[in-house]
């Protein structure tokens, strides 16, 4: 094959599709680059004839393979959700920075497909780390990666806590209330979060207000992934190029984080 240009789509074939929930699927593929990306990095994923969207790169238990875990909502994500085994997609990247993983007591807070970078982050923890993973979901049907988190942490002192808003599984209530409680009781060495912006916003507040190191991996609508189109700007920051991972200290000074994102026309919209 000819030399790879990481800003040009490289075509890969989907080898396996795993249903995580009725609306979430993991698509597994082989590639030289994507299995080795850092937690927080993403790829621009082209579904030929449909669309292209930024996706955090999911780990695979098979070496030489990576995956995308997608929830269907818009046309692009639904297009990716519907890709079948043997079909081809294009990938650009990896793009973006990654988490600064501390040692000791770690708290990971993930919601929905925001769990993807959290799972990859777990592959980097040291055996000596004491890791707590919070998985937030609306209801039982939408819970996934709980077993995966436990198996990735089998050699660590760890807790994996699931909370559902309706209490249909695990603890009842918002995961952010759980975060507030945990950071109140425990002095974590690092808190890491990815998921719905409001969830990340509160998690950052809870930790940062107590002087605890916290990082969040932001999600925005993207067109280029390389800092050209500007679609993903949050205040003066570009999620694709300055992020996706930002320190709580930095985010707490950003007027748009937690409140606004831009639509396809670049107009600010409320969360």
């Amino acid at each position, binding site marked *: 094959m000819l030399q790879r240009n990481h800003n040009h789509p490289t075509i890969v074939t989907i080898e396996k599709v795993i249903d995580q929930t009725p609306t979430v699927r993991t698509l597994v593929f082989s590639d030289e680059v994507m299995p080795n990306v850092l937690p927080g990095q993403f790829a621009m994923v082209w579904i030929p004839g449909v669309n292209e*969207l930024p996706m955090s790169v999911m780990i695979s238990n098979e070496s030489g393979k990576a995956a995308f875990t997608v929830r269907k909502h818009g046309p692009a994500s639904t297009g990716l959700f519907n890709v079948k085994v043997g079909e081809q997609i294009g990938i650009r990247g990896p793009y973006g920075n990654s988490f600064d993983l501390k040692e000791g007591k770690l708290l990971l807070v993930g919601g929905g497909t925001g769990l993807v970078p959290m799972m990859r982050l777990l592959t980097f923890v040291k055996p000596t780390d004491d890791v707590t993973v919070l998985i937030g979901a609306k209801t039982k049907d939408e819970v996934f990666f709980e077993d995966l988190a436990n198996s990735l942490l089998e050699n660590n002192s760890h807790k994996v806590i699931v909370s559902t808003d309706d209490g249909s599984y695990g603890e009842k209530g918002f995961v952010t209330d759980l975060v507030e409680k945990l950071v109140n009781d425990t002095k974590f060495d690092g808190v890491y979060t990815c998921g719905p912006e409001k969830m990340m916003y509160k998690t950052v507040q809870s930790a940062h207000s107590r002087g605890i190191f916290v990082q969040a991996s932001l999600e925005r609508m993207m*067109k*280029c992934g*390389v*800092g*050209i189109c500007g679609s993903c*700007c949050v205040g003066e920051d570009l999620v694709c190029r300055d992020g996706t991972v930002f320190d709580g200290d930095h985010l707490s000074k950003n007027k748009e984080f937690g409140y606004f994102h831009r639509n*396809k*026309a670049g107009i600010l919209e409320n969360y």
Partner: protein
Amino acid sequence: MTNQLLYSKLSSLIKVEPSLATSIGTIQLDRPVMLASGILGISLDVFNRLYRSGAGAVVTKSLSKEPWEGYPNPTIFSVKGGGWINAVGLSNPGAPNFAKMIEPNKDVPIIVSLVGSIPEEFEMMIKAFENCKVTAYELNLSCPHVAKVGLEVGDDPELVKKIVSTVKNTTNTPVIAKVGLGTTHYLNTVSTAIDAGIDAITAINTVRSMAIDVETQRPILSNKFGGLSGTPIKPIALRCVYEISSKHDIPIIGCGGISNWEDAVEFFLAGASAIQLGSAVGDNWIDVFGEINQGIKQYMEKKGYSTIKEMIGVAKKS
């Protein structure tokens, strides 16, 4: 010339720090390197950051009367052989929304890029900016991948004449026309714009192009066609700047594949008073502005230039 030579000789002796200030007609800039239209141009916070990073001015995304979503992805990717192809489709929040957004601006020289298909649209849009600090307007007459606007306008001399005259009658702010390679001779568009009173020319826009993925056997862009930018088009853009400056006495802003100080200097020597960066930001991120300013300054020191002006068009004398 001999005075100039003497002056630069002297200034090099007495080690005058070269000045990066430049003027494009009546437009005065502290630095000659600006952000090209279409790049990062939708947030005032980002504009301030770019200005702090060394951009002499920022050109906004091309604004239309109404907000536009642009084309579905894929809208941008890099060509294997180098450069980028994009068909973002002029997505923008619309002139009124954008004007509100930049109203607080005090520091940044903002050049507002406008796109439309009839003179009245341009008139209305400019009115929306009456409470804003606007350094200049850049009329995008050369977008290669959106119908009814861009090149379809630039390729129609009558329409160019009408639009430029209307805009010039609407505002006292300097007005720049951005031209590109369309289906007519861009030099005719330049002449028409000059006759209609344009203050400066930006050359050139991206060049209509395409890439096909051989695995899936389809064009990569959702719009099939897009504009080629980056290093591949630099020699074409440089030729256009040289041709315009050889034919007309009009300030020129060079744009097209400039990615380092040497490229920038080539454009000055060809007749450009300032330059714009686009793809280079994608390739080297925001530090590229400072790096290019620094490189230009070192070149000026080496050659004994104390002002950008002394460099402009020097290659035409050879």
